[in-house]
């Protein structure tokens, strides 16, 4: 039993079930990120934890106490909303202490708590302003202050950074992470941004269509995605998914991929024994762009690198890296090269593929072949 337990929780509107038997246990001090495309049910799940949406079946418990039917204000949670939801008619100070006031905390104690939080978030000079006079980043801080001042068991964040511009978003991301490290609070954080999910979380739940597709640490999610959805959703640019025909050759499996008129054969070293049962069948082979590089940029610690020749269709210099597109298995395939790799469109160059990181998927069930 964890600190926050979601046991077989489902949510249905009438006969339409939008969230199917979600089962997640969060330990104290964990940073759980719910990530997925819009409409996947992540915000619904967050609202159910907050008590803003009812739980149709199943149970949500905080510190071992069931929260079904408990009013949001009695769950000892705090929530930061996407729009910040600052009360426009109150000053920053009043915004921060409103919750304490509603819970009957004496004025002196409220002010002490307010000053403490304001100092931590460096918003002391803003306390007498109205939310309308603040910039986006300042509002974000106030919204966090309002959550922090209550000293809740669980913090809930609903896409808190999506209204900020790109640079501020990265800054605030770091600040949220710092805050979590310093305070050791338990956080559930909803986002559709896979980079936020990867950088912030201690664990990620990738959701789609009302199902939790995979629950695991960022590394697990990234390196061993459970299915094609998780593989392609996490990572940018997204994973290359190539059609490959499996051919068993002695004690190893080979993946044959068409390339122009011919075929390249890649030995599957890192795959589980079940791959051999796919002899003669076509599978989907997932290779991340950073696992296909110029030979000089290849991972030196990798046990198995295959080198192939490929014609470059497009190059996209991005400053820190150069992304190149080639055609493999009849589809565009993106490779990530060093920034100063000397490649031009139309050239044929050597590409080094790190086969340790190649992941086979069953094309019918879309699950990883373990």
């Amino acid at each position: 039993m964890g600190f926050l337990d979601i046991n077989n929780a489902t949510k249905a509107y009438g006969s339409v079930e939008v969230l199917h038997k979600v089962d997640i246990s969060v330990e104290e001090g964990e940073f759980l990120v719910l990530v997925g495309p819009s409409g996947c049910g992540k915000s619904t799940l967050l609202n159910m934890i907050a008590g803003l949406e009812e739980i149709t079946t199943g149970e949500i418990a905080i510190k071992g106490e069931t929260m079904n039917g408990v009013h949001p204000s009695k769950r000892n949670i705090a929530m930061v909303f996407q729009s910040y939801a600052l009360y426009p008619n109150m000053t920053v100070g009043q915004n921060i202490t409103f919750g304490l006031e509603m819970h009957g905390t004496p004025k002196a104690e409220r002010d002490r708590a307010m000053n403490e939080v304001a100092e931590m978030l460096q918003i002391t000079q803003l306390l007498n302003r109205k939310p309308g006079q603040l910039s986006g980043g300042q509002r974000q801080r106030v919204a966090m202050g309002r959550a922090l001042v209550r000293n809740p068991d669980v913090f809930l964040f609903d896409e808190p950074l999506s209204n900020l511009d790109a640079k501020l978003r990265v800054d605030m991301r770091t600040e949220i992470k710092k805050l979590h490290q310093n305070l050791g609070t338990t956080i559930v954080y909803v986002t559709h941004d896979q980079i936020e999910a990867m950088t912030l979380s201690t664990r990620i739940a990738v959701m789609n269509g009302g199902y939790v597709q995979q629950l695991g640490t960022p590394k697990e999610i990234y390196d061993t995605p459970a299915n094609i959805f998780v593989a392609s959703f996490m990572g940018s640019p997204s994973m290359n998914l190539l059609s490959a025909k499996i051919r068993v050759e002695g004690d190893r499996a080979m993946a044959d991929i068409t390339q122009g008129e011919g075929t390249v054969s890649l030995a599957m070293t890192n795959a589980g024994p079940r791959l051999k049962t796919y002899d003669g069948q076509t599978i989907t082979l997932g290779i991340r762009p950073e696992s296909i590089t110029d030979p000089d940029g290849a991972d030196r610690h990798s046990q198995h690198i295959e080198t192939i020749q490929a014609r470059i269709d497009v190059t996209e210099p991005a400053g820190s890296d150069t992304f190149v597109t080639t055609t493999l298995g009849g589809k565009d395939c993106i490779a990530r090269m060093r920034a100063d790799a000397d490649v031009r469109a139309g050239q044929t160059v050597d590409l080094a593929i790190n086969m340790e990181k190649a992941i086979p998927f069953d094309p019918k069930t879309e699950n990883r072949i373990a």
Partner: protein
Amino acid sequence: MSVASSDSAVRMSRFTRTLIYLFLLLFALFYLLPLFVMVVNSLKPLSEITGGNMMALPQVWTIEPWLAAWSTAQIGVEPTGLRPYFWNSIKMVVPAVAISTILGALNGYVLTKWSFRGDKILYGLMLFACFIPFQMVLIPMARVLGVTGLAGSTPGLILVHVVYGIGFSTLYFRNYYAAFPTELVRAAQIDGAGFFRIFWRIMLPSSGPIIVVCVIWQFTNIWNDFLFGASFADFDSQPMTVALNNLVQSSTGVKEYNVHFAGAILAALPTLLVYIVAGRYFVRGLMAGSVKG
């Protein structure tokens, strides 16, 4: 002479501008003419009116007609002037406006932020209240007032106007609150505020423009109402409009037109005042309610 340039559609020639102002001035004069006639004639002795020119300025300026209309003119059988009826109207309008506005705000709050099964249908039904003609409710309302024992009293009139006003005030507030972020209500719920505290502390303080719209609308309608006042009021609760009618219609003695003009202006003054004080918020609030609703 024409300085119109092709780079801006808004810029226009001096000739066009003059023409537009001329038209505006003409229409302004046209609309102000009745007011002019009323004001001018209310400041003349009666002999000047009966003697001839309604449009002429007074030869002898006097405020006697105003004083008479306010405190001594014959209303029905009593020589009380309009004064007691003015207070009747105030005693009716202020509570009726306040109650219908607050109920409308509550309705709008519930209909948008505490949605329940069938709320859309209920709202649709409430909208009907805006379209029901006054005459249709006369007899049922008389029955209700009779049963409740409120017939012929100021509270009775307040009830009538509140019931009639809720349709419009609900319409205003519902549309305004529909654009009000629901996340604020949710945040307040998590902060521990209940139904009424959210209403008082979060919703109402942010409703300034729509409150102004609702108050102006209700005030004008209720103050100007004649039919309900004539039908449901007793002698000691008759509003200003009914008294004005009685003043003008009195069949004994000479028709004192100057007093009638002064009385009519007195009756219209409060609504005029409300418009002047709060008018600029009116359009703003109306836009906010309608565009986002």
